[in-house]
């Protein structure tokens, strides 16, 4: 018997499955297991064993473990359609998962259910060098994509995250990478997508919606891709993603600089960013410049600048590069004349190169962050206007070094994004996973930091549920209503990663 009792399903290309493959005597757990196995064609790709489910129950953050009831590894969008239809019929949650490295517990199932591990969908379907886009599946890793693009002289906004993490999961969640100063966030690079809606229908967004092999842009159509971006796997499963891939320029210079305080550093970054010359314009506090981050807090040595930074200047011609370097030097000089403590610094070539060598196994492996802390890491990673950075950083320092039971390093990063004077403001917070009291101390710091940040006008990205609650508390009611309406419209049974948005 083919399941067809849901009149919302208007398409017929999903994989049909028997509603009760083992006969009427199977209990629900066994029935779902059998049905999932039938959908994906082999029991090998399904598990309801607690041994397997445990390995999906927590991540690198302080979030308490919560196990899914099933893990399934689909290979095709059609299989995903059938899984979602089954989940609707049985009213069980579905949590999309690619590598689980989001630093927000976003794949930890709040209410159990089916953990949909998408790593078998790992094909780079197209790299179009003429129109400069690539089409990828969810399981394509940063490492895999980097290898293929580099061969052809193209690049992407590589985050400093794990090489094993998904390009797609990062891009649809407004990931930040090494090109964010020049081209914007990774979500700005999306040129089209294929999505399976929570109720099982499949759709295309952007230009491939009109012609399937045209993946050049989401515009000029309505931005329906927005319904599936930044939504933490709560509105559908993205099964294909088109992304813009710019060529690797021939010339690069890495400028390095330091300032005694964030006020001066921010002034420099704001001034230099107006030229839109930098692919990456980042500064880090002294504690983050230590490798790894000191755990617990240590005093900064007297005389060491509190802030150091780097800018990656790419160019296609020598002249272009010269101009960028001239402007960089001039901004520093001019500000210096005004009494700003910003100055150029000389750092070893190797550490400069590290700024462009992304994705990085060293940074992505969390070594720089939590090797000393002991395996746990969390942070409020935020988009914040640069004129609030100083105020928030000072509050963060107060929380981390004075108010915390165990003082922690205020290891903070700021990065300018393209478009206007806002950017990343985040405080990396390592902790030992096996010492509950210290874990709680770090969790308290992170939560307090998120609260003062949101109050100051910043917004956490890829927010864990505790941040989502804080965001919603302060949100415009009309905006919350719209989220609820959209969620109800797309996901009437509330099966998609429930709880993560903090509204449903």
């Amino acid at each position, binding site marked *: 018997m083919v399941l067809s009792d849901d009149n919302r399903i208007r398409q017929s290309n999903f994989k049909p499955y028997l509603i009760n493959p083992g006969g009427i005597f199977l209990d629900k757990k066994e029935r779902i297991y059998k049905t999932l196995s039938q959908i994906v064609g082999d029991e090998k790709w399904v*598990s309801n064993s607690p041994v397997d489910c*445990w390995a999906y129950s*927590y991540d690198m953050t302080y979030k308490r473990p919560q196990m899914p009831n099933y*893990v399934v590894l689909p290979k095709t969008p059609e299989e995903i359609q059938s899984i979602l239809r089954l989940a609707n019929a049985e009213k069980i949650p579905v949590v999309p998962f690619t590598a689980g490295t989001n630093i927000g517990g976003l794949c930890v199932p709040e209410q159990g259910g089916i953990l949909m591990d998408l790593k078998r969908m790992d094909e780079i379907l197209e790299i179009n060098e003429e129109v400069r886009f690539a089409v990828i599946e969810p399981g394509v890793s940063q490492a895999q994509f980097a*290898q293929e693009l580099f061969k052809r002289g193209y690049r992407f906004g590589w985050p400093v995250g794990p090489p094993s993490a998904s390009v797609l999961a990062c891009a649809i969640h407004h990931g930040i990478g090494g090109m964010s100063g020049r081209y914007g966030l990774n979500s700005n690079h999306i040129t089209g997508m294929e999505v399976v809606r929570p109720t099982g229908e499949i759709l295309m967004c952007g230009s491939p919606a009109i012609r399937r092999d045209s993946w050049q842009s989401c515009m000029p159509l309505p931005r329906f891709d927005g319904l599936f971006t930044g939504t933490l796997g709560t509105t559908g499963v993205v099964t294909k993603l088109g992304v813009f891939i710019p060529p690797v320029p021939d010339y690069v210079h890495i400028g390095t600089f330091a300032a005694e305080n964030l006020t001066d550093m921010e002034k420099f970054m704001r001034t230099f960013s107006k030229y839109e010359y930098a692919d990456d314009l980042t500064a880090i506090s002294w504690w983050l410049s230590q490798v790894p981050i000191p755990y617990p807090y240590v005093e900064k040595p007297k005389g060491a600048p509190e802030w150091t930074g780097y800018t990656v200047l790419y160019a296609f011609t020598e002249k272009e590069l010269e101009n960028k370097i001239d402007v960089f030097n001039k901004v520093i000089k001019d500000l210096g004349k005004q009494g700003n403590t910003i100055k150029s610094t000389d750092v070893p070539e190797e550490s400069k190169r590290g700024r462009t060598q992304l*994705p990085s196994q060293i940074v992505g492996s969390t070594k720089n962050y939590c090797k000393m802390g*002991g395996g746990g890491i969390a942070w409020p990673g935020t988009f914040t206007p640069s004129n609030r950075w100083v105020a928030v950083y000072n509050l963060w320092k107060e929380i981390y070094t004075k108010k915390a039971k165990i003082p922690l390093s205020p290891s903070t990063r700021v990065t300018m994004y393209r478009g206007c004077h806002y950017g990343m403001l985040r405080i990396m917070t390592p902790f030992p996973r096996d010492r509950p009291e210290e874990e709680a101390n770090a969790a308290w710091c992170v939560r307090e930091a998120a609260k003062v940040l949101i109050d100051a006008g910043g917004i956490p990205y890829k927010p864990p549920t505790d941040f989502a609650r804080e965001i919603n508390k302060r949100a415009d009611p009309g905006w919350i209503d719209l989220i609820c309406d959209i969620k109800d419209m797309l996901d009437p049974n509330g099966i998609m990663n429930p709880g993560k948005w903090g509204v449903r």
Partner: protein
Amino acid sequence: MADNFKDLKWYSQFFRKCSKCGTCKSAYSYGPPPTNATICPQGEYFKLDSYYGSRAKSFLGQAILENRVDLTDPAIQEDMQKAVFSCTVCGGCQTQCQLDYKPWIIDYIEEMRHNLVNRGIGPTKAEKIYQEKVIKDHNPYGETHSSRFNWLKDVRNLKTDGNTVYFAGCTASYRRTEIAKSTASVLTKLGEDWAVMGENEYCCGSPLLRAGLREEPQKLAEHNVDYLNDHGFKTIVTACAGCYKVLAKEYEKWWGLKLKAKVLHTSQYLEEKMKKGELKLSSVPATVTYHDPCHMGRHMNHYEVDMEGKKQWKGSYIQIDKPGLYETPRNVLKAIPGIQFKEMYRNRDNSFCCGAGGGIKASYPDVALETAKTRIKEAEGLDGVQKMVTPCPFCVTNLGDATKALGSKVEVVDLIQLVDQALKK
């Protein structure tokens, strides 16, 4: 019986430092150019995160130690056994990890097995069978102990005294006798005063150690060490990567059993001869690639750890201060005139396991075969490669099985066979 093994609780200070970053799932390097390749045979086969890399093992150890899953339930016991015992313990994941967990990954996986053995959840059925065979006949193949040196009859009389003793190991003695014969032939051609242990050579203990057993391999170790130390040998040579790791490292590490003689893998022995100008090799025209056995390469890496917190902090991993045997066998191979050498994409620390280790060949033959096929296909991808050379009889066996299954033209040979051929001419 006294030993230096640590329990799971002890290892938890390190495996709880796994951040779950997933870097251990593939071998990635920025380069340039950036390269990325699969590294975990178990993860590639099963795909579930409960099987992938040392990340998975950290989850599993915690589940066992903190009773996160009900290990009294037979179905869960079965699942746990499969997750823990279907790993080839190749160490590919260990190479990728950058945190303080790194140095301990291999030993910890074996301790997890030991923990399950103590609970009656291991070893696997197949391992139990070969365990009994080792106890009875001192080899895992179920062959009679008295026939251990049958291969030698074609070569020369049994001689048990001399400067150098050739520790043949079970696989070369019973299954890959051509490797044992080549080793004997090479030693003879080089004018070595060499001996064998005869009926006193027992299995080195590797197959039992890898399955999480402790007392049984200790008996084998004590027997072998007593005999070797009592007979005044100066050098112990073995052509097996598994025996090499156990003799050169583990007897002392686990049980404080010191061998008086120097332990050399045949490739080290040959490199020494080469340096002295005593290795006169004639041409063997062939295009070859080299497969690093895990037990000779990654497993022989030595890790500097700051246990006392003198340089960094307590238990911090500092560096690999002595790498495994990567260059030695390559140097010997490249010294053979006529050899055209081509490196596989995954090599040295990032070599892809042959698939036979950790008891997998017996317990999970499908995983073993699929893994070996992947490796053979990698060699096939190199233009004109005729032979895959490796200095380990167990790797030769499993990779050879894959060539048969694939109908591949790539021939798998042991390094010593190639050297023997070159020395003949």
